[in-house]
């Protein structure tokens, strides 16, 4: 894999970000995920959280512990050196991709913005559904809410921007579009994405040891299901 340029900057006195650019690109996100797995695997000392995003990765660290064992250097500089060392190794990892199919009911009662998306694209609703289910999406990052997957890239024809006025309540399982991104609300929440359907699967289940269905780096395909099937799966989940 080719090496990408990056910059490292602080996001406070206990966290730093390694940025590989300000874009949504698969190659960039691959570099992010490489480094994420590298840092996880090698358990770099004093790191307490690692947050991969579209084109950056951030690390939260224990400043006091670093300073106690390295009194003559900034904790920020010390951590930066560890990360750079890891990055020099990070091209050797194979990225392990899980493929997950998520059933979605694209019914107007569950996807209240379907008409708006169809109008925007000058397509029929059936064509919008066909475009949304045709692609394999990559989970570039998880953020916003516990388990909320930011996936890309949505077909250009249906890249409708966020709503100017967010809804105060979006039901859990709602599938939405925001520009090139598609996502699923794991919990009921306020939200501004264009809603085109709903999955009966639990994207976030607090009773499970791993409560999030999706993880960064996963690949997702949507499968259109009927309203009947939606209710049936929903019932099985209870």
């Amino acid at each position, binding site marked *: 894999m080719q090496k990408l340029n990056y910059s490292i900057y602080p*996001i406070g006195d*206990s*966290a730093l*970000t390694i940025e590989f650019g300000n874009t949504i690109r698969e190659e960039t996100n691959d570099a992010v995920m490489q480094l994420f797995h590298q840092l996880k695997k090698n358990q770099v000392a004093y790191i307490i959280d690692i947050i991969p995003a579209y084109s950056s990765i951030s690390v939260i660290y224990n400043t006091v512990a670093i300073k106690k064992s390295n009194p003559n250097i900034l904790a920020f500089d010390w951590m930066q050196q560890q990360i750079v060392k890891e990055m020099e190794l990070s091209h050797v990892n194979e990225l392990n991709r899980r493929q997950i199919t998520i059933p979605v009911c694209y019914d107007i009662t569950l996807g209240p913005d379907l008409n708006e998306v169809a109008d925007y694209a000058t397509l029929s609703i059936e064509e919008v559904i066909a475009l949304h289910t045709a692609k394999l999406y990559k989970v570039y990052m998880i*953020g916003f809410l516990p388990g909320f997957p930011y996936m890309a890239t949505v077909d250009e024809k249906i890249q409708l921007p966020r709503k100017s006025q967010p809804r105060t309540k979006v039901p859990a399982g709602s599938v939405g579009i925001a520009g090139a991104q598609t996502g699923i609300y794991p919990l009921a929440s306020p939200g501004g994405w264009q809603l085109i359907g709903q999955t009966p699967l639990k994207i976030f289940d607090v009773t499970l040891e791993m409560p999030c269905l999706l993880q960064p780096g996963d690949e997702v395909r949507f499968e259109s299901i009927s309203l009947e099937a939606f209710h049936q799966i929903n019932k099985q989940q209870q």
Partner: protein
Amino acid sequence: MSITILKPGLLTTIQDNGRWGFQHLGINPGGAMDILALQTANTLLLNNKEEAVIEFYFPAPIIQFNHAAFIALSGADFDASINGTKLPINQPIYVPENSTLQFNNKINGQVGYLAIQGGLELIEWMNSYSTHLKAAAGGFEGRALKAGDEIQLAVQAPKSSSSKDCSILPWKADTHAFYNHASCWFIPGNEFHLLTDEGKQLFTEAGFSITSQSDRMGYQLNGPSLQLIEPKVMISSAVARGTIQLLPNGQCIILMADHQTTGGYPRIGHIIGAHLAALAQKSIGQVLHFKPTDMATAENLLLMQAQHLHQLKNACNLQLDVYHRH
């Protein structure tokens, strides 16, 4: 061994040092708003300094102690009392069984902490006892406490033979220096340089008041509108507690304990860790002033705070020894 919540107060939750290691799943760390107060209250009791405690706002809860316990209050001073005896913050207190702890007035600060020696008997969710209100998980049944909730205590304090009253133990923590800065110091954020010259000047010279749209997630500020040299479209990336974001309307928000894991607004700055405790104790309407500092200063202040807690622990150890010998 238990306590019972008689009145829940405005927002009373179980909190600890936060839920770390899961932000890649969008699970934010949360935890106590005032980590220093959490650690101070626990240290006074020689608990693990990150033991779960009860966090509360004003109006504060009324809590019945069904069994004797050693407790400490820290953070806000809400004029606590038990059976008419006034209780100080930052000092350990012996509470006899069947006592009622109440808080009478908002004297100072915004968010209070009640630590109990030995800790609370709760079930961890993802390595933390902190209440995650959005996920309805952690803490006590994943929610704010309500009237009638009974929380089990891990240990029972010995019954006092001498007195049925509570007694205030003779050692205390002095955290004064960590709460009395004239301004909030910040490390400039990655987008600070994108502010217009006027914006930079306003940010460090004007006052910004905390609006009523503020909660455990963040403080929405009201101040002069800040402008960028040119609009900046940003891809979402991680944010941290203390991050100051510039919203499209020119106003700022400071991210607090329950902040989201990621965000896409320009980052003007990051409040230094050593000033987050004082920030947590600010109330709606209070005016903040921001002053830039550098990483070396920020890190050293954080280290000093940790050393202060360590000294407090040593002092408490010594005092407890003396106390038990009498």
